[in-house]
């Protein structure tokens, strides 16, 4: 029984490898390249002919003139594109609370006048370490700082936030959010 089973097992496995392991991904790649070239290649953001990032991958910001992204647990640097990870800190781990305190302090130091409670995303690490977005609350929290440093009216910055806010899908799925890289690029583009 073993030998008469071996031939179909081996040959079927090889045929399936060619079919599902080579033909299938090649077909998808071919169609994707023609139909969705921008998405298939990583949704890169090009400025003056140079790639400055991807719409989908977050970047680290610490300059007060920019909106800051969420904390990132990637190593050695935050938002390391080839080392996606969360912190995996448990809810009682003292390291989690220390991290929250440190991030809250950094936000306060950058804008001592701001006494609002800090939105939770700005002090917690995302799952991927590459979260490209923050909530409208997290953007508004930073609006006064960005406006002051850039010498812009707060209203102008808030309008920019509003125009970059994406809502829930069908009002139900996902969360309202703002792409930080796009928002910061728009800020740099203001005159």
């Amino acid at each position, binding site marked *: 029984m*073993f030998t008469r*089973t071996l031939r*179909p*097992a081996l*040959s*079927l496995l090889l*045929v*399936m*490898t060619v079919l*599902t392991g080579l033909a*299938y*991904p090649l077909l*998808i*790649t071919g*169609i*994707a390249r023609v*139909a969705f070239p921008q*998405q*298939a*290649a*990583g949704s*890169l953001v090009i400025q003056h002919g*140079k790639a400055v*990032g991807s*719409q989908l991958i977050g*970047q680290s*910001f610490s300059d007060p003139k*920019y909106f800051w992204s969420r904390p990132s647990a990637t190593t050695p*640097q*935050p*938002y390391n*594109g*080839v080392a*996606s*990870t*969360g912190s*995996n*800190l448990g*809810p*009682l781990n003292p390291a989690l*609370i220390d991290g929250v305190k440190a991030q809250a302090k950094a936000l306060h130091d950058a804008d001592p006048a701001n006494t609002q409670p800090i*939105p*939770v995303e700005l002090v*917690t690490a995302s*799952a*991927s*370490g*590459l979260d490209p*977005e923050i*909530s409208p*609350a997290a953007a508004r929290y930073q609006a006064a700082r960005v406006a002051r440093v850039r010498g812009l009216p707060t209203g102008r910055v808030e309008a920019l936030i509003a125009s970059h806010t994406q809502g*829930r*899908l*069908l*009002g139900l*799925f*996902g*969360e*309202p959010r703002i792409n930080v890289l796009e928002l910061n690029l728009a800020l*740099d583009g203001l005159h």
Partner: protein
Amino acid sequence: MNADTTFYLMLLVFLGLVVLCVKPLGSYMADVMEGRPNFAVRIGGRFEGLLYRLCGIDPAGQMGWKHYAIALLLFNVLGALIVYALQRAQLWLPLNPQKFAAVSPDSSFNTAVSFITNTNWQGYSGESTMGYLVQMAGLAVQNFMSAATGIVVAIALVRGFARHTVSTIGNFWVDITRSTLYILLPLSVVFALVLVSQGVIQNFDGYKDVTTLERVSYQNPKTDAAGNPIKDAAGNAVTEAASTQTQTLPMGPIASQESIKELGTNGGGFLNANSAHPYENPSPLTNLLEMLAILAIPFALTYTFGRMVGDTRQGWVILAAMLVLLVPMIVLAFQIEQHGNPLIARQGIDQLASATQSGGNMEGKETRFGIAASSLFAAVTTATSCGAVNSMHDSMMPLGGFVPLFLIELGELAPGGVGTGLYSVLMFAILGVFIAGLMIGRTPEYIGKKIEALEMKLASVFILTTPFVVLIGTAVAVSVAAGKIAVANPGAHGFSEILYAFSSAANNNGSAFGGISANTVFYNVALGLAMFIARFWPIVAALAIAGSLAAKKRVPVSDGTMPTHGPLFVALLVGSVLLIGVLTYVPALALGPVVEHFALAAVK
């Protein structure tokens, strides 16, 4: 709308979409697996016939359960050897633009077993370990084959009920070919293209460097000439200041792998962060579709079952029992996570849900998913054998993290993995009618077949193998240094990481409390064995039951037959699942999430 209303509406719409798929997909799968000519078979029939000739397969030949089981085991073990060889040889293979080195023997073993068993536990980090050829021709192929293996075992068991007085349960080669060719592959093609259109990448380029807006300063660990980190006298890593304005973006054929990863309830991510990574799951829409893809086939197979045994009510009853088990767990996860972490609230942080933020426990969650879509995904992926994650389960609250852990430990049957869910739940149905039979003093029957001593013994083997592997494995790991050193979080949470690892491996889930450093010889070997034993031992038991049932006469329905198509049977089935799950795991769970929950209240 407040957060609760939005969540419950979302859940209702989502489950509605899932249930809508059940009848069309379920009857399509019944057609295909019963060999009834439909449009797909007419299109693919020629190719299918050619494939059989090429492989020397007689599609008309029927197999007894032993032959079927041997074919299945051989096919899977050969698959593991190929995945192992590809990883070991990847430096010399094409499509490895980052020139990744050969994967270590123990990690290659673990990953090979992991992917053939539909577990997709990952001790490695995808974007820095695996070349594109290994991902495609090794891992993705097993995504298809392990899912197809699950389907064929389920179908063989259903045939055991549907057939009578015969010695055969089908043809393994034909079943595996048909479930790949007509079910998994076409769905994957369509879904992969949808995913690309939404931003999931699909290319063979090398990784891309971009120049970021701001220069990032950080501390870089120093390494010696051999690449090992240098440590100071106190054992802390020595670092030096560094900065960069370059971000390297991973590339690869991700969409084609992502689609089968969900449809086949595999769950192994191309990238380390899995479905939390924006290149795998970029938006609320892709997230919704990925969750639908995970649940579609497992739920639809209940209808396939009903159709094949000639009474669709039997399928709907099982679906109802699955929902009764699943929905409360989803709600629990959402409520706990939305409530947030009181220790973070004490720092003056705003965790309240509002129109402008999701709030709640956002550690380890992505902004675009927030609490609702992360909690739902966590339950969906562990109620099946998927194990893909869109949030980090390790950072969930104690009782939030209890939900995925407990759903895994219940045996992943609400609705369970592709095929595995159906055959697992049928084992509990057998147990349920047996318990009921004891109560009323009659020989138990299910779907017209007498359930006798042999079936009960085999069902017990099926049901008890996995808990045995989980609890023994956990006990060994917490007793040896190699097991304890891998833990990332202190206290009860560290125990939960180990318990989760063995629960996930033995139930072929693949998700993790990811802080655990499992890419060590101890865990690669221990978890590899757990995955293998707890996958194939129960499968052989299920096929043996299929063979025994197929040989039996059909018992006509009489006044004494206990009906298995009503609410009473739903209660019986749910009760059996909970009885076994709770009795088996309560002690272990008490030491993990439960202790941690009370410890949280005691933190000063």
